[in-house]
């Protein structure tokens, strides 16, 4: 009969909120910051992405410009121990055997490598998530899609990549131009051959989530299956997707470089990191820095992406977070 709510016991009453309310993403960020390697990795990835995006506007040297008089310049730091080395501040990373500026090449090569990496990663995530959600949510499709995933997992990836690239290079080049065709081909092939782990993880999580009460509740108030997937399932599988995204980015960058290294990647006048490395291997005794610079660029990028993934896994897992 009384409308008043019971008064809290004096001793237990809070004097107001103890700390400001925290959002989920603030928790994630706090946990992420504790992982030194992940912060460093994320920072470096941001730096290298910005460098290859903005760099060509700041360092306005055409990477394709042949300057044969200034060929075979050494990087500027060689002057530290060898004062007779052919160095110049106008060519801080040196030039190659045709006099092309190495810094400009690294920047535009990084652009290609990062673009391929990001595009292939996003495409393979989309395919993997779609297959995983469909297999987990629609019972009829589960068997078929998982058999398909198993089949793709038992394909020999690198040989098939090589086969596909050598076979489809010509027609795609004619259709989309030498660089555009190669970009579509490499991105498509990497994505088609790397979506399977994401699909498996997403399917497993969806299968477990589907039986939980909140999905039942959503269903009982008449939510359409599409909305259930969109509102309730996808946000909950976001963290494994993000972790496999970082792994996918690393694999895509390495695969693109490997293809370029084996000579089936982008055309030779279009620098990518793998291509620069492959071209420099012939003369690495005289000019070891030409192997080192792109190699270190690839390795550091992939290393930072891997550390980022490690940190994200810890930060996004609510069971580890806060410990």
């Amino acid at each position, binding site marked *: 009969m009384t409308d008043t709510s019971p008064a809290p016991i004096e001793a237990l009453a809070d004097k107001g909120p103890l700390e400001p309310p925290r959002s989920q993403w603030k928790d994630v960020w706090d946990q992420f910051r504790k992982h030194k390697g992940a912060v460093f990795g994320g920072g470096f990835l941001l730096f290298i992405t910005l460098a290859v995006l903005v760099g060509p506007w700041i360092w306005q040297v055409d990477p394709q410009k042949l300057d044969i008089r200034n060929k075979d310049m050494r990087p500027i730091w060689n002057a530290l121990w060898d004062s007779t080395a052919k160095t110049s501040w106008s060519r801080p990373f040196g030039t190659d055997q045709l006099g092309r500026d190495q810094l400009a090449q690294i920047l535009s090569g990084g652009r290609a490598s990062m673009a391929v990496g990001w595009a292939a990663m996003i495409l393979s995530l989309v395919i993997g998530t779609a297959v995983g959600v469909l297999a987990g949510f629609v019972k009829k499709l589960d068997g078929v899609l998982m058999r398909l995933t198993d089949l793709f997992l038992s394909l020999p*990836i690198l040989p098939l990549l090589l086969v596909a690239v050598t076979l489809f290079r010509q027609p795609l080049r004619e259709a989309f131009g030498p660089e555009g065709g190669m970009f579509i081909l490499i991105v498509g092939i990497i994505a088609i051959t790397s979506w399977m782990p994401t699909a498996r993880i997403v399917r497993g999580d969806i299968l477990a989530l589907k039986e939980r009460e909140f999905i039942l509740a959503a269903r009982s108030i008449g939510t359409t299956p599409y909305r259930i997937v969109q509102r309730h399932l996808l946000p909950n599988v976001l963290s494994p997707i993000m972790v496999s995204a970082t792994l996918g980015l690393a694999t895509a960058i390495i695969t693109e470089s490997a293809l370029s290294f084996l000579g089936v990647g982008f055309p030779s006048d279009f620098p990518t990191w793998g291509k620069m490395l492959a071209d420099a291997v012939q003369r690495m005794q005289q000019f070891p820095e030409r192997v080192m610079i792109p*190699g270190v660029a690839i390795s550091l990028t992939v290393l930072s992406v891997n550390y980022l993934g490690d940190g994200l896994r810890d930060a996004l897992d609510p069971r580890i977070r806060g410990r």
Partner: protein
Amino acid sequence: MLTFAVRRLVLAVPTLLFISFVIFMLLQLAPGDPMAQVPLTVPPEVKEKMRQALGVGEPPLVQYWKWLVQVFWLEPKVFIDYLTNSSTLLGWLPDTQLYQGELRVISWQTRSPVMDIVIQRIPQTLWVVGMAYIVGILIALPIGIYSAYRQYSIFDQSGTFITMIGFSVPPFFTGPLLIVIFSVSLGWFPSIYDTTHVVNDWASFKYQLSQMILPVMVLALQTTAQISRYMRASMLDNLNQDYVRTARAKGLSEAVVVAVHVLRNSMIPVITVIALGVPAIFGGAIITENVFKVNGIGQLLITALFANDLPMVMTLTFIFAVLIVLFNLIADILYGLLDPRIRYD
């Protein structure tokens, strides 16, 4: 267990057939022409006959069927003949003479049977890649065990860092890097793997060892990185279990607890990972073989691809697929055999 193995084996057959069909149809789209190198003075009708002789004139499905017959019927015959005829192991058996000179899978580059070339190349790959895998496992296991036992110690932290590097630095960078350091600057090891080298005395054996070190190091770095991660995670899972506390409580020494109780249980997933990695290392060795000029299977695939030698590419890719399917099967069966909690029935 046996029914499971048999069922998986039976299931593997349609999988492999489908994979081979996909690869074959992919290769049918190849724009290259095997007759492109033939001089222009050769008249077109002769060219057409040569095309027929290579088996290119037929419709794709007929070609696929013939390839299947050659690989699954003729090649085993040739192999059995070889076993009973000239091998030392089964040479005492009467010569079977199953193979009656039918056309085998012929390489378009050399016009010799593909399988013969593959058999020639396999020892090089097995030596380098297999050795690298074994070395990698031998290094990885102690690292994984110790870094799990002393979690978050300096050893563990540096081990984590090194394995991260092993994951991140691609073989086409470590290869040239090691060549620059060890064969150019220091001059310790040769940079090219000489496959014609014959081991017949101590000096040549030492040379063989020295030329194997660099490629083995490159491949072993990646294996080590991967397997030591798995070993560490698996050990960590087991170290906190109740049975470990029981073993300590009844007074077993720390060495026995770790090396017998925990290690045996942690090895179960690691062994399956090792089995699963075998075909991957064959595929991944393509780049390393290319860097060190080892003429193994990977290098054969690359040259065949560039020379547009479709039967060779087809057969090699199929061999890789067989390896993957086979080792997936082996891993599953091993897991069931080693872990009594796993029931496949």
